């Protein structure tokens, strides 16, 4: 589940290349030696959402990936997409964690009570399907939006978490440029990425204005469904997100991006990265389907219909 060593080597190569280009003194971006020194080159370092060698379309729109120490906002497209938005955020946090120097860095998830009641609480056995080990998660439950923003700022001031996720409901009145600026400054100073899920503002991504660096709008996409035998309904496939980039801070070279384009992504647990989801009509190739039993937690792929029936009997025998 953590990123392979090849990925780390690529990361280091990119880092050295940027240092050589900058020509400055050696200031390691995420190591502890640079305690409190604002390193300008850390801003240029980006964490790619897809595999380093096969970047996904969202990485190309972001010109490389998400920057370190910054605030990123995620808004759901419809009220029913909130769970999908939190899943996407968790996967992005897993990407940040994969690039960390230590493998035991924790992800801090701050949830407001209203969001817990509306969408539910994060469920442990499913976290590994989004790339996060449940032992590395710290959940903080807060009573209202003000407390959640305070907790998020406190968590962003620390250097040790891999990422800080804040799922806040009542942002309408209190979240403005000033509040977001505080979070951005805290994140930049410590180098901890902050991910803010505006749970109460589903569908209002274009109307939100804040100081965050990037903003995504997440919706669920129809998953690649597999046929089932006997004329029954098809089986749902792997989870697919349709992400739209609403705001992205221009890099050193400046760029524009298409605000209406929908990027379809899914999570690859083996490589711990995002992948472009193939469109609906194309079925998965035989390489993805192994002779494993139908319920396989790692890839979530479904076996053939015959495997499904055999396993159905096995499941009933198990629970009876």
């Amino acid at each position, binding site marked *: 589940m953590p990123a392979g060593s090849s990925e780390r080597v690529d990361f280091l190569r990119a880092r050295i290349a940027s240092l050589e280009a900058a020509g400055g003194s050696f200031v390691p971006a995420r190591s502890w030696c640079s305690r409190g020194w604002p390193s300008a080159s850390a801003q240029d370092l980006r964490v790619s959402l897809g595999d380093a060698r096969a970047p996904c379309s969202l990485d190309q729109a972001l010109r490389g990936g998400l920057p370190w120490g910054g605030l990123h906002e995620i808004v759901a497209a419809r009220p029913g997409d909130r769970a999908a938005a939190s899943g996407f955020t968790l996967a992005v946090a897993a990407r940040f964690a994969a690039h960390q120097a230590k493998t035991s860095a924790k992800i801090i998830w701050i949830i407001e009570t209203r969001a817990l009641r509306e969408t539910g609480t994060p469920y442990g056995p499913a976290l590994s399907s989004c790339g996060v*080990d449940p032992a590395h998660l710290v959940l903080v439950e807060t009573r209202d939006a003000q407390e959640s923003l305070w907790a998020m700022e*406190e968590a962003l001031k620390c250097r040790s978490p891999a990422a800080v996720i804040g799922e806040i409901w009542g942002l309408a009145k209190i979240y403005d440029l000033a509040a977001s600026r505080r979070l951005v400054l805290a994140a930049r100073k410590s180098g901890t990425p902050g991910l803010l899920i505006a749970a109460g503002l589903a569908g209002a991504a274009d109307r939100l204005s804040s100081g965050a660096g990037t903003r995504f709008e997440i919706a669920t996409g129809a998953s690649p469904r597999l046929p089932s035998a006997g004329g029954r309904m098809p089986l749902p496939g792997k989870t697919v997100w349709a992400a739209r980039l609403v705001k992205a801070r221009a890099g050193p070279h400046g760029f524009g991006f298409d605000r209406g384009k929908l990027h379809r992504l899914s999570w690859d647990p083996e490589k711990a990265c995002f992948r472009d989801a193939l469109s609906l009509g194309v079925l998965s190739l035989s390489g993805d389907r192994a002779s494993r039993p139908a319920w*396989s937690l790692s890839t979530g792929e479904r076996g053939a219909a015959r495997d499904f029936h055999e396993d159905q009997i096995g499941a009933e025998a198990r629970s009876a």
Partner: protein
Amino acid sequence: MPLATFMKIKSALRLAALDPRALALALEPGMALADARARHPALLAIEANPSAEAKILTDILAWSRRFTPLAALDAPDGIMLDVSGAAHLFGGEEKLQAEIEARFQAQGLTARTALAPTPEAAWALARYGHVLRPLISFLPDGLDERRLARALGPLPLAALRLDTGLVAGLARAGLRRVSDIILRPRAPIAARFGTHLFARLDALLGRTKSAISPRFEAPPYLAERRFAEGIVARDGIEAIILSLAQDLCTLLTRHGEGARHLEASFFRVDGAVKHLDVRTSRALRDPEAMARLFRDRIEALGDAGLEADYGFDVLRLSALAVESKGEDQASLDDTLNSENDLAGLIDRLGARLGVRRVTRLSMQDRHDPDFAVVYVPAASRARPRKCAPRDISSDAEIPALPPRPLRLLLHPELIEAIASVPDGPPLRFRWRRVLHEIAAVEGPERIAPDWWKEAPGFTRDYFRAEDRDGQSFWLFREGLYRETIEPRWFMHGLFA
């Protein structure tokens, strides 16, 4: 008007407590109420309330901890304070006793105080010292035994805390005072009345450490400050807490320990006491961190704050639970620092929001999805059990569990669903007033209830359903058609 309280003792109403005017009329506790009223019809008698009296005594105890933290109840009407090390703060033992009496007077309580080298002597002097001529209520430390015996001699034998039958028996034998027993040979008296009488006598005179002594709750380390007038401003209180934390940390460093449970006690001028406590996830020895935790705790109290009406004049910071802690060493890759960083964050969040709101996940080996995960407070020491990595490469005969939803609703919500009978998957359903048409479904996964319980509940068939828009749900039908006539459908979770 003389005032007395009465209680029902063995089906007769008897006097329990009397005020000085009633005592002056030669009334005694234990006398029957009818007799007392017959003698003095003007006597005002009210029913005693032992629980209220006990509560008042506990409040007085809490307030009298301002003199020393070693204070214990001496039921039913007294308090025992161990002032061994505290006298110098008041300028001497006599001044301490005067201060205690003045404070009690200011509170409106009449108190008889006595200060003595041993707890038994203090008890005896406080309760029976009024018979001594001249009145003694203070015995200095270091008094030798002969003088102590001479001072305590005139006390009656009841001052040794013996029961009334024994005292009456000794009185019939002509032994009424403590001095009568000190000088006589022990063997004949012990043969008739028992030896514990002499054990009490030895404890009184300080020859032996008494076997019965009040239990004191003493914190291992504490630092305190006393002020001439009350402190009201919050900045002042926070600055004082910081300086108390510095003193406490010096003490802790000297003994090589760190605090895990801290308590700040605020004693108000008018007698109220407030305690704030803070628990930490690791042994703490940093004054700035301690002060910061208390600042967060005071902020969490809200607008009312500490309610320092006229101010606090004693502030005390005590470490209630300590752990040994070595020196902090900076490691080469700073892993220790990052653990401290995260632990400090968890402590701060816990101090402000409450310890139970900062949790980690602990996976349980239960098939029931509601109980598969337990939320453990992050500050507690127990490491949550790691979810075992599933070995996907081996050909396992038992397949792994089906995918679980990312978000589990706190309680399953009732939905209206249309499905084919008897165990078909749902075709469409209405949840929270929105209709969803199902386009793909996977299941059923049958989770049976705990059959070993008395009322096991119904079997659940879980389905993973995806609707036309792509949103995935985890629904279940509760109850098979052989268990119930009308099974119901519920929504339990949402997939990413």
